C-alpha cells in the first residue's frame, strides 16, 4: 500500500547566461531559479498492483519515485509506503522495497555479479535458505547461470539489466520500483524483462511502480496509468479509459488498384499516397464494416487493415492536450 498525499518538492537550480563574462560573474553572484518538481501530488496504490507512471522528461516521475524510496525528503505532504514514512524510517522502509534505476548500476563493476549478490544478501540479512531459493528461482527465470560468475563490466547491456533486475528481488520486497527498466534494450530483452515482471507480480504479489517512456511496456504490463506533468497528476485511470479520453478513432489503411475512393462523412483522410490511403474513422458516425463496404464499392481493394490508435499516439495526444 502506497499513499501519497499533497506532496510538494521544489528544487533550486543555478542559472546563468552563456559566455565568459557571465561565468566570471557567477563566481561572485549566483542566480537561482526555483522549480516545482512536485506540486501537491496525491494518489494511492493498492497491494499487488502494477502502476504505469508516465509523463514527459522532467515531469516529476523520478522525483516521486525517489520520495517513495526515501532518497528525497519532500518539502511538505505525507507519503506512506507499507505504513512507513520513507524518509523518517529509512532503514526499516528500504528493507521492504526494491529499486531498479535503469540508467544507473548497482552491481560492482569489476567483480563477478555473484559477489554483488552476496553483498546484498548480507546487507539485507537474508537467511541462507531463502537466499538460495530466490537466487535459484531468479537464475532460472532470467537465465542468469552463465552471467553470475562474470564481472559486471564484461556483460552486455541486456545481460547486465537482467542482473540489475534480479538484484532487488533477492530480499522479497513488497514493492518494486522500476525506473525505466527497459531503456536501451533490444526487442528480445525487452520482452523477456516484461514477461519476468508479470511473473513476479503474479507469483509474489509484488506491487510494482513502473516509470517508462516505452509505451509498449505500459501496454504489456499495466492496467492503471498515472500521467504526471509539470509536477501535477493529470490523469489517473486504466489504459482503455486513457484511450477513450483522447480518441476512439480507428485507423484504416487501404491499398487499392483503380480509381481513388471518395471520402464519406465520418471518415477523415490522413494520408494519400499512390494507391494507398490512410483514413481515420469515427465508428460512432460510420461503423467500420460500412466504411469498408463503401470503399470497396468504389475501387478494387488489395489490402485493408484496421487498427486502434497506438498507445504511443494516445500519450503524445495527451501530452499535447495538457501542454506538458
Amino acid at each position: 500500500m502506497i499513499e501519497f498525499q499533497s506532496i510538494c518538492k521544489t528544487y533550486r537550480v543555478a542559472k546563468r547566461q552563456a559566455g565568459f563574462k557571465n561565468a566570471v560573474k557567477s563566481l561572485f553572484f549566483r542566480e537561482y531559479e526555483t522549480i516545482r518538481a512536485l506540486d501537491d501530488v496525491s494518489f494511492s496504490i493498492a497491494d499487488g498492483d502494477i502502476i504505469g507512471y508516465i509523463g514527459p522528461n522532467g515531469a516529476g516521475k523520478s522525483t516521486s519515485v525517489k520520495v517513495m524510496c526515501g532518497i528525497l525528503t519532500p518539502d511538505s505532504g505525507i507519503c506512506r509506503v507499507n505504513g512507513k514514512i520513507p524518509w523518517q524510517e529509512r532503514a526499516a522502509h528500504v528493507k521492504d522495497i526494491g529499486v531498479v534505476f535503469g540508467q544507473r548500476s548497482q552491481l560492482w563493476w569489476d567483480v563477478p555479479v555473484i559477489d554483488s549478490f552476496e553483498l546484498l544478501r548480507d546487507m539485507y540479512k537474508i537467511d541462507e535458505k531463502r537466499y538460495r531459493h530466490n537466487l535459484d528461482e531468479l537464475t532460472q527465470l532470467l537465465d542468469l547461470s552463465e552471467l553470475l560468475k562474470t564481472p559486471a563490466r564484461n556483460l552486455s547491456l541486456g545481460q547486465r539489466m537482467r542482473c540489475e533486475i534480479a538484484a532487488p528481488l533477492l530480499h522479497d520486497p513488497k514493492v518494486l520500483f522500476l525506473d525505466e527498466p527497459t531503456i536501451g534494450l533490444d526487442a528480445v530483452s525487452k520482452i523477456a524483462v516484461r514477461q519476468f515482471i508479470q511473473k513476479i507480480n503474479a507469483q509474489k504479489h509484488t506491487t510494482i511502480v513502473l516509470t517508462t517512456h516505452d509505451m509498449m511496456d505500459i501496454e504489456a504490463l499495466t492496467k492503471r496509468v498515472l500521467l504526471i506533468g509539470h509536477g501535477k497528476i493529470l490523469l489517473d485511470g486504466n489504459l482503455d479509459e486513457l484511450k477513450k479520453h483522447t480518441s476512439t478513432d480507428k485507423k484504416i489503411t487501404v491499398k487499392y488498384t483503380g480509381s481513388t475512393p471518395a471520402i464519406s462523412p465520418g471518415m477523415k483522410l490522413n494520408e494519400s499516397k499512390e494507391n494507398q490511403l490512410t483514413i481515420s474513422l469515427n465508428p460512432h458516425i460510420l461503423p467500420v464494416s460500412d466504411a469498408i463496404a463503401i470503399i470497396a464499392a468504389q475501387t478494387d481493394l488489395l489490402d485493408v487493415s484496421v487498427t486502434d490508435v497506438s498507445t504511443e499516439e494516445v500519450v503524445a495526444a495527451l501530452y499535447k492536450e495538457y501542454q506538458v
Partner: protein
Amino acid sequence: MKSYLSLFRIRMINGLQYRAVAIGSILTRFCWGIMEILAFFAIHESGENFAMTFSQTASYIWMQQAFILMYNVIDNDQEIEASINNGSIAYQLALPMNLYGNWFTQCLANRLSPTMLNCLPVLILAMLIPAPYRLRLPDLNTVILFLVSTVLALDVVGAIAVLMHITMFYTISQRGMKIIGRAVVGFFAGGLIPLPYFPEIFQKVVSLLPFASTQSTPLLIYSGSLTGKDAVSAMGLQVFWIAVLITFGYYAMNHTLKRVVVQGG
C-alpha cells in the same frame, strides 16, 4: 556488523585485482623514497643538529612510502566520488545500511587492500640497501606499538576522508576541496617533512591537530622519535580524534542527507 564485513570484503576483492597499479606504485614508492632520503642526507650533511637523526629519518621515509596508500586521505575513493557525480548514490541510499558506515567501511578497505599489495616489496627492498639509508627494524615492542598506532591512524584517515566526501554534496566539483585537502593534510600530517624538523612551538600545536594523528604518530613511533609515555599519549590523542571525527561526521552526514537531491533520470 556482518553487512559491514561483507562490504569490506568485496572492496578488498575489488582492490586486490589491479596488478599493473600495484607494480607501478611499488616502483614509484621505491624511487620516491630514495630521492627523499638523498635530500635529507644533503640537509644532514650541513652538520646542524636536528631532532631526528638521519637514520631515523630514513626509516620514517621508508615506512611512509610502504604505507603511503594507507595514510592517504585524498584520491583513494574514486567510486564514492563517482557515485555522487553520476547519481548512483541513489542506490546506496536505498540500501538498509547507514551511509556513514557504508562509506567509512569502504574508505578503510580502499586503503588496506592496495597497501597489502604494495607494502612488502617496498619494505624488503628498503631493508636490503646499505646503512644508513636502510630501513631499520626496531625492537618488537616498538613494532607492536607501531601496528596499533597504524590501525588507529587508518581510522582517523577514514573519518577525515568521509568528511571530505560529505563536502562534495555541497560543491559542483570536488577538485577544489581536494587541492585544499591535499595541501593541508599533507603538510600538517608530516607527509612532506617529518614534524620534528619544524620549530618547536609550531610542532607542539600541530601535533595536537587530527592530521598529526594520521601518519605522523605511527611513523614517529617506528623511527624511534616518539617513545614511552609520549607514544602512549599520542595514541590516546588518536583515539580522541577518532571519536570526535566519527561522531561529527555521522551527524554531518545525517544532516546533509536531508537535503540531498539526486538529479536526473
